[in-house]
């Protein structure tokens, strides 16, 4: 299968302005040279702590923000170089599901209009066909057809997120950016929404970029996972490999931070994170993780954080990773429960 989305060297800096005549005095390096690709019909999970730049990447892919530099190729075309009119045409293929299901639906619009207006505007259906097409969408996301005559505030969080998913599906997209779609929901609802997303992907042949900070949900839905830290990808591998056999110390720490429901494993060696995420304004030289890394050494200041293919299909941004890598077996027990 081919790569549907290729992100190359994506950079997003936010300038901080100050002074009597405002000028840039510093930059927040939200995304600092990120490259990855997603094969058609697969899901890439993007994880990291809040503020690591993962949501910024998602917003740039759906063209809500313009990258400082870098390219985003969607089906061979660079979104960052498109004319405005071409982009308006093309962007229906790339849709987004937002984190907060409460603020992502217009409170003054009935569900019917939320779903139908974009379809009619893009000539996906005519005004006459809209009602049946809306019914179809509601069926797809598991909502009662009567929902279309109601306002968003009449629904629960999980139901609203289903409406948000239906809205993303309305334009027949090929890729959907899921920006922490379940993190604002009750745990019992999370699984339902994740299963819905999985089924829809299989049924419609969709490609997902799943952004999350909970490793459990990301692992459940993703084929491959990229771990981000301070604007950089530190590790990228198959979902299972990443859990059973993580190479980067940060990935290990993230995995070990997840609660484990098995009491017999409670005494496993913890590599939980200490210290704080550094400021994105004041990034340490060399490896950005070195201040919190349990394996930090003198050489870390010279590390440029380029992804290295340590094993086939398994990339890591730490040249020392293999030296202290866990063997797949020793970690397996813990990971299965995550």
């Amino acid at each position, binding site marked *: 299968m081919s790569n549907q989305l290729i992100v190359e060297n994506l950079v997003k800096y936010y300038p901080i302005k100050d002074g009597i005549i405002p000028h840039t005095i510093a930059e927040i390096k939200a995304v600092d040279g990120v490259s990855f690709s997603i094969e058609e019909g697969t899901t890439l999970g993007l994880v990291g702590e809040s503020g690591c730049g993962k949501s910024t990447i998602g917003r740039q892919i*759906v*063209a*809500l923000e313009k990258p400082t530099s870098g390219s985003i190729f969607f089906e061979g075309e660079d979104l960052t170089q498109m004319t405005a009119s071409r982009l*308006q*045409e093309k*962007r*229906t293929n*790339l*849709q*987004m599901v*937002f*984190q*907060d299901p409460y*603020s*992502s*639906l*217009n*409170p*003054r*619009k009935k569900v019917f209009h939320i779903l139908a*207006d*974009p379809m009619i*505007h*893009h000539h996906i259906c005519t005004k006459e066909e809209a009602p049946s097409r809306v019914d179809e969408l509601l069926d797809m996301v598991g909502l009662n057809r009567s929902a279309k005559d*109601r*306002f968003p*505030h*009449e629904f629960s969080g999980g139901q609203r997120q289903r409406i*948000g998913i239906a*809205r993303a599906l*309305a*334009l027949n997209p090929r890729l959907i950016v899921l920006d922490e779609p379940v993190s604002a929901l009750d745990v019992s609802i999370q699984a339902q929404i994740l299963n819905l997303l999985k089924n829809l992907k299989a049924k419609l042949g969709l490609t997902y970029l799943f952004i999350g900070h909970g490793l459990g949900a990301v692992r459940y839905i993703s084929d491959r996972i990229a771990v981000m830290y301070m604007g950089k990808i530190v590790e990228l591998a198959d979902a299972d490999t990443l859990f059973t056999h993580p190479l980067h110390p940060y990935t290990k720490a993230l995995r070990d931070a997840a609660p484990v429901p098995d009491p017999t494993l409670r005494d496993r060696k913890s590599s939980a994170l200490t210290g704080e995420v550094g400021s994105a304004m004041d990034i340490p030289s060399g490896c950005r993780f070195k201040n919190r890394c349990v394996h930090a050494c003198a050489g870390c200041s010279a590390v440029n954080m380029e992804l290295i293919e340590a094993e086939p299909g398994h990339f890591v941004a730490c040249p020392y990773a293999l030296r202290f890598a866990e063997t797949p077996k020793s970690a397996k027990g813990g990971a299965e429960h995550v």
Partner: protein
Amino acid sequence: MLKLKPVNIPSSPADTYNRQILRRFLKHRLAVVSLIFLGLIVLLAILAPVIAPYDPNRITGGFSQAPSYEHWLGTDQSGRDVLSRLLYGTRISLLVGFMATLISTVIGVILGLLSGYFGGWLDMVIMRITDMVMSFPYILLVLVAAAIFEPGLVNIILILGFVDWPGVARLVRGNVLALRETNFVKSAEVAGMPKGYILFSEILPNTVAPILVYATSVFALSILDEAALSYLGMGVTLPTASLGNMLNGAESITILTSKPWLWIPAGSLIILLALSINFIGDALRDAADPTSTK
């Protein structure tokens, strides 16, 4: 605020946003009374040609006659029927207030939307112009405009309308700035919807309630300003009656002391109109924003 005793109105699960506002509004007794009063006055004003006993501009009795069976509220200094003039004057005052509010609200909403949504230099320019207009004391600007342009019904509407927009513009701009960042606007952008759709279909409906609340206070102010201007002889000009110019003669001590029918009806009607509109506006503010403490 001003809910005296809560009236229990059951809420159904299918309660819409507008119905919620209505339900909360109805809890304000004083505002409901005001609304009924205002509705009645508007009706009387509209029906003035039908119910007025006399032609408001014709001399139908002696000068400054006290109320009698023929003239319920007496006659004015020129011998015209005060009740008829009051009905027609209310008509003119409400018309001036409403049209001025409409003009200033439309100007303010358009400038506020442009300023808030597009930002950048356009926002800068519009906001600086707003600052400039706001720097001139409102009444002074109105008086000066009234001095330059001939006083009269149309001019007074235009003057009041073109002077009072900055407040609305600032209000709308603030709302747009907040709404522009919401996820439902972002998702309309992701869906490739045109800017016009986003502005008028996504953003504007969500800022209607505060605009309406603000407009009621502008409406009350416009009625008061029309009264003051007409009283000073710079607003609606005679012989057309307005609530303000009916008070023209009230400066004279003989009228104040011995001819109360020449100033009490028009004066109290101005106060009651402004008061009821302010009560309605306050209840609307409270109804549209349940967290508001104002």
